[in-house]
C-alpha cells in the first residue's frame, strides 16, 4: 500500500524525556496510560495483599483497624480510577485512531494533559497514607457523616477525585470528538468495530456521570470546611442525599468499567472463532440501552436506607431490566463461537473466561437486585464477591485479553504463547479460589470492611487468602511476559491473527509512529467485523 510506504518515510519521532512528557502522539500516550495502569494495578494489588494477609485468620495480626480501613478505601479508588479506567483509556488511545483510519486523536494536546493529570492526582491520594491521621478510611463511597471524620487526608481525597474527574472527562471528550469527526471516508457509524462503539458510549457515560460526582464531593468539602449543611442533619440536610448523588454517578461508573470490556471481547471472539460477530447491530443497541438504563437503577445500591416501597419496586424492576440487553450480548458472544473454527490462543482464553465469569457476576448481581433478598446480602462479602467477579474476572480479564491480542501490534514481536497460557490458567484458578468462597462468607453473614471476624468464617477466609496471594504472584508473570515481548521475539506479521478483522491489522507491526496521515482507501473486506 502506497500510504504505508509514505508513513514509514516520515517515521521520525522526538527522543528522550521530551518524547514522553510533551507527547501528542496517540500511540505514545496510549502506552503511557497502559504502563501507568499496570503500575497502579500493582500498587492497588499490594494493598489487596495486605487486606488478605490480615484476613488470613481471625484476630488482628498485621495492621491496626484504621489502617486496614484505609487499605480497603484506597485499594478501591486506585483499582477503579487508577487501573481499570486508565487501562481502558490507554487501549482507546492506541486503537481507536487505528480502527477508524484517523491519523491521531482529535485533540492531541488535551490528550497529553488528561494523561499527565493522573500521576499528580494519585500522588495526592497516596500521599495521604503517610500523613498524620492516615489515609481516607471511610470506604471508597465516601458516605457522610463518617467520611467527614477523615483528618488531613480529606481535602487531598476530594481534590484527587476532582483531578481524576477532569482527566476522565477530557479523555472522553477526546474520544467522541475523534470518532465523530475523524473517521476515514466510508467508515460509517454502523461499520465501526464494536470496541469503538463501546468506547463512544462509555465516553457519554463519563461526561454525564463524573460531573455529578464532582458536585457531590464538592458538597462534602463545603460541608466540612465552609459551614454548609448539604448532608448534615443539624443544618436541615440529609446524609442519604449524598448516597443518591453518589450512586447516580456510581452505577453508570460500573458500566464505564464494563462496557470497554464488552468491546474488547467483541473484537477477540470473532477473530479466534473465525466468524463475523453474531448480531452486530443488536450489540450496538444492547450497549446503548445498558448505558441509558444505568441512569435509572442507582438506588439498588441503597435498598436498606428506608426507601418507600414503590421506590424499591421501581428500582428492582429497572435493575432486572438491565439483564435483558446484557443477556443479548452474552447470547451473541456464544452464538459467534457456535460452529466456529476456534483456536485457543491466550487472548481467546481470557475472553471466553470473561464471558463465563462475568455472567456468574451478573447472576449474583441479579440476586442483589432483588429488594427483599438484598436486605440480607447488603454490605456482606456476597457483595464483595459479586463486584470482584464483574471487575476482576470481568473487566481485568478482558483487559488482559486485549493486551495479548494487540501486544504484537504494539511491539512488533510475538509474546511467549506458552507463558501466556500459564498466566491465564493460573489467573483463572487463583481468582476463583480467591472470590468464590466469598459468596459463602457473605451468605453466612460476614460483613465487608471489617479487619477481624468470627471464628466460623476462618476456613473460607484462609482459602480466599491463598487464592489472593496466588493471583497476586501470578501477575508478576504477566509483567515478565510483556517486558520479554517488548524486548524481542518472533517477528509479528501485520495481520497478527489470521482471523482478525479491522483496519489496525493493515498497518505493519509494530505500528509506525504515524499512521493514516492520508485517509486509507477502504475496501469492503477491510470493513468486515
Amino acid at each position, binding site marked *: 500500500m502506497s500510504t504505508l510506504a509514505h508513513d514509514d518515510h516520515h517515521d521520525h519521532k522526538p527522543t528522550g524525556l521530551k518524547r514522553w512528557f510533551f507527547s501528542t502522539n496517540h500511540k505514545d500516550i496510549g502506552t503511557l496510560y497502559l504502563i501507568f495502569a499496570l503500575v497502579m494495578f500493582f500498587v492497588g494489588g499490594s494493598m489487596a495483599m495486605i487486606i488478605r494477609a490480615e484476613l488470613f485468620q481471625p484476630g488482628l495480626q498485621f495492621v491496626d483497624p484504621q489502617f486496614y480501613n484505609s487499605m480497603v478505601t484506597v485499594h478501591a479508588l486506585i483499582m477503579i480510577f487508577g487501573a481499570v479506567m486508565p487501562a481502558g483509556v490507554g487501549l482507546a488511545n492506541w486503537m481507536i485512531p487505528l480502527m477508524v483510519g484517523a491519523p491521531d486523536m*482529535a*485533540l492531541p494536546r488535551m490528550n497529553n494533559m488528561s494523561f499527565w493529570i493522573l500521576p499528580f492526582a494519585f500522588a495526592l491520594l497516596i500521599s495521604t497514607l503517610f500523613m498524620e491521621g492516615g489515609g481516607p478510611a471511610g470506604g471508597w463511597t465516601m458516605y457522610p457523616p463518617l467520611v467527614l471524620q477523615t483528618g488531613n487526608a480529606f481535602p487531598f481525597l476530594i481534590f484527587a477525585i476532582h483531578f481524576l474527574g477532569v482527566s476522565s*472527562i477530557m479523555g*472522553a*471528550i477526546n474520544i*467522541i*470528538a475523534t470518532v*465523530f*469527526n*475523524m473517521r476515514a471516508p466510508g467508515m460509517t457509524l454502523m461499520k465501526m468495530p464494536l470496541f469503538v462503539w463501546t468506547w463512544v458510549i462509555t465516553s457519554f457515560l463519563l*461526561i*454525564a*456521570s*463524573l*460531573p*455529578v*460526582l*464532582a*458536585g*457531590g464531593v464538592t*458538597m462534602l468539602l463545603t460541608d466540612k470546611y465552609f*459551614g454548609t*449543611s*448539604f448532608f*448534615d*442533619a*443539624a*443544618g*436541615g440536610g*440529609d446524609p*442519604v*442525599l449524598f448516597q*443518591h*448523588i453518589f450512586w*447516580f454517578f456510581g452505577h453508570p461508573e460500573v458500566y464505564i468499567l464494563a462496557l470497554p470490556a464488552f468491546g474488547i471481547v467483541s473484537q477477540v471472539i470473532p477473530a479466534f472463532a473465525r466468524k463475523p460477530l453474531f448480531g452486530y447491530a443488536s450489540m450496538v443497541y444492547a450497549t446503548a440501552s445498558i448505558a441509558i438504563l444505568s441512569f435509572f437503577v442507582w438506588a439498588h445500591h441503597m435498598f436498606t436506607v*428506608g*426507601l*418507600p416501597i414503590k*421506590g424499591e419496586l421501581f428500582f428492582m424492576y429497572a435493575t432486572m431490566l438491565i439483564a435483558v440487553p446484557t443477556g443479548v450480548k452474552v447470547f451473541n458472544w456464544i452464538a459467534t463461537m457456535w460452529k466456529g473454527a476456534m483456536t485457543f490462543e491466550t487472548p481467546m482464553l481470557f475472553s471466553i473466561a470473561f464471558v463465563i465469569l462475568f455472567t456468574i457476576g451478573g447472576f449474583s448481581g441479579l440476586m442483589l437486585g432483588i429488594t427483599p433478598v438484598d436486605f440480607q446480602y447488603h454490605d456482606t462479602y456476597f457483595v464483595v464477591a459479586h463486584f470482584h467477579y464483574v471487575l476482576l474476572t470481568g473487566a481485568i480479564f478482558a483487559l488482559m485479553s486485549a493486551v495479548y491480542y494487540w501486544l504484537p501490534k504494539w511491539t512488533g514481536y510475538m509474546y511467549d504463547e506458552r507463558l501466556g497460557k500459564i498466566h491465564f490458567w493460573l489467573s483463572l484458578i487463583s481468582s476463583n479460589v480467591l472470590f468464590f468462597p466469598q459468596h459463602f462468607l457473605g451468605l453466612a453473614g460476614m460483613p465487608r470492611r471489617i479487619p477481624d471476624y468470627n471464628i466460623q468464617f476462618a476456613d473460607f477466609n484462609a482459602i480466599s487468602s491463598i487464592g489472593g496471594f496466588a493471583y497476586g504472584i501470578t501477575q508478576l508473570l504477566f509483567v515478565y511476559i510483556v517486558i520479554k515481548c517488548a524486548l524481542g521475539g518472533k517477528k509479528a506479521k501485520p495481520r497478527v491473527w489470521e482471523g482478525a478483522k479491522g483496519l489496525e491489522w493493515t498497518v505493519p507491526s509494530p505500528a509506525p509512529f504515524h499512521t493514516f496521515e492520508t485517509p486509507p482507501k477502504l475496501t469492503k473486506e477491510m470493513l468486515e467485523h
Partner: protein
Amino acid sequence: MQRGVKKTTLKLFLFAILMFGFGYAMVPLYDVFCDITGINGKTSRVVENKNQSNVVSDRWVKVKFDANINGNLPWRLKPQVRNMKVQPGKFYEATYIVENILDVDIVGQAIPSVSPQIASLYFKKSECFCFVNQLLKGYETKEMVVRFEVDKELPDDVTSLTLSYTFFRAKAGNS
C-alpha cells in the same frame, strides 16, 4: 483544528458543566420529592388552618414523644409527658424541657422527625422550636412548646405515631 472537532468539543464541555449543575439541582429536587411523598419523616409546617371546619373525628390516636441529643452537645432534653391521646382535627400542645448542664452559653438546634413515615404527611405543627437556633445560657433550663394537630385524613391503620426531636449543636455561620 477541524471545525467539526471544535463544535463537538464545545458541546461536550457544555454538557459536562450542565451535569455538574444537575448534581447540585438534586439537592432541592430531593427535598421536594421528600415533601411530596412524606418519606424521610419530614413534617410539614402549617399555620392553623382557617377554612377547616372544627369537626373533630371521634378517633383516638396515641402520640408518643421522643427526645435525643446528638453527639457532644452537653444538654438534656426530655418531654414533659411521654405520650398523649389525641383526637385528629384538634390542636394540642406538648412541652419539652431542655437543660444546659455546663456553665457556658451554647447554641443548639432541633430537628423533628415523625414515624411511621406515612404519618408525617398528616402531622401538622403550627408552633415549633425546631429549625431555629436556640440559645441556652450556662445551666439554663427552658420549656419549649410544640403545637400540633393530627390530620383527620390519617389512614385508619395508623393508631399511634411518634414525634421525635434531636438537638444538634448549631454549626457556626448557620442561622
